């Protein structure tokens, strides 16, 4: 007979040993009920007893507790790795700590590299732009340092304007004073001058119709 296929529940009709006391018999019955060792009719009888017998209920709860505790104790005893695992835990924690430290260092190095290399990259790109335009940075500097000629403000202002006569003594509080750094370039002044001359040569617009002489009312 195949032993694995033999699952018929077993419950001896008589106690195994005459020395076993009735309370132990009750616990044994509860154990057999929980482990499925009782016949169907025996299990039904035990359930009927559970309805009315508080000691049987407590014995059943106790049987399950014993089974759970024995299972837990045997699993601890049978797995020596469980005793080693607490020692493994700090090692794995240390490993993860080193790993995070390595990632943080790598991130910091990458940020530093970007901070140093990016300005240089943009500088070289600017230089390339200048060179591609046929200019050099030196030329740009020289151009920015060139002094533009002082415009003649008298050309821009009417002759009878109170500030037409430039007075150096009033420079500090003269609102019409134009700083040479902000003066318009000479070509612009020439263009404005030409425009002014052209305007004056243009024919004068037609004179508006003169209004009718007021009618004097006779009193």
């Amino acid at each position, binding site marked *: 007979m195949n*032993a*694995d296929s*033999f*699952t*018929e529940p*077993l419950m*001896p009709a008589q106690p*195994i*040993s005459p020395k*076993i006391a009735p309370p*132990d018999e009750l*616990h*044994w019955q*509860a*154990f057999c*009920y*929980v*482990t*499925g*060792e009782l016949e*169907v009719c025996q*299990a039904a009888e035990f*359930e009927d007893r*559970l*309805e009315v017998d*508080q000691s049987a*209920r*407590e014995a*059943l*709860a*106790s*049987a*399950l*507790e*014993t*089974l*759970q*505790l*024995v*299972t*837990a*104790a*045997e*699993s*601890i*005893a*049978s797995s020596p790795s469980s005793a080693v695992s607490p020692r493994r835990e700090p090692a794995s924690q240390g490993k993860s700590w080193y790993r995070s430290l390595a990632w943080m260092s790598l991130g910091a190095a990458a940020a530093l590299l970007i901070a140093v290399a990016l300005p240089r990259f943009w500088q070289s790109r600017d230089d390339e732009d200048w060179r591609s335009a046929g200019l050099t940075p030196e030329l740009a500097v020289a151009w920015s340092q060139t002094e533009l000629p002082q415009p003649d403000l008298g050309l821009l202002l009417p002759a009878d304007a109170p500030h037409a006569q430039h007075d150096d003594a009033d420079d500090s509080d003269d609102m019409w004073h134009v700083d040479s750094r902000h003066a318009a370039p000479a070509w612009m002044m020439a263009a404005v001058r030409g425009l002014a001359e052209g305007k004056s040569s243009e024919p004068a617009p037609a004179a508006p119709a003169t209004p009718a002489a007021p009618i004097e009312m006779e009193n």
Partner: protein
Amino acid sequence: VSATGDAESSYDEEFLAACAPQALGPPSGQLGAEVVAGLYVEHGEELRRFLQALLRDAQLAADCLQSTFARLVERGHETREGARKAWLFRVAYHEAMLFRRRQAIGDKVLRNVAWTRDDVTHSAEESAVRLEAVEQVRHALEQLPPDHRQVVRMRIYDGKTFAVIAQELNIPLGTALGRMRTALIKLRKALAADETDAGLPDE
């Protein structure tokens, strides 16, 4: 369907009758929250194990335990204080039978192993107590004779039937059963001694 419904309704009536307190007192309102919480702390874990042994399912047992305490809130005030533990177990039993009928849990399901997994989440204090109990049992197992411990291990941990154990160890079935019974008595005594020691005041 009607037959099942009739059977169920009669079972419900039976259940309600079971909930009825054996010693009725004057209804004076529901039990206070502190009383219910105290009863849960005192008997909840034992009731949960009792229900799990009946239902072979931790989740079903938890649901059933909740229903039991809902009944306690509803009708617990009608019970005598000294009889509340037995009343709770009685109600829990009938709740479990009701669950089994509704979920059609047959005898095959009741053959399932009920103890290998303890799915309930314990508090830190409960876990510490449980760890201590496991250690106590482990110590008691080490005190057993090797042939007794072998049977315990094969039956509980490996899940083999006594017939298979007897065959594998080449011993009579009665011997396998006897070793198991003796081992269980010793284990239970060890646990009971531990509980007695825990109950003693520190000197």
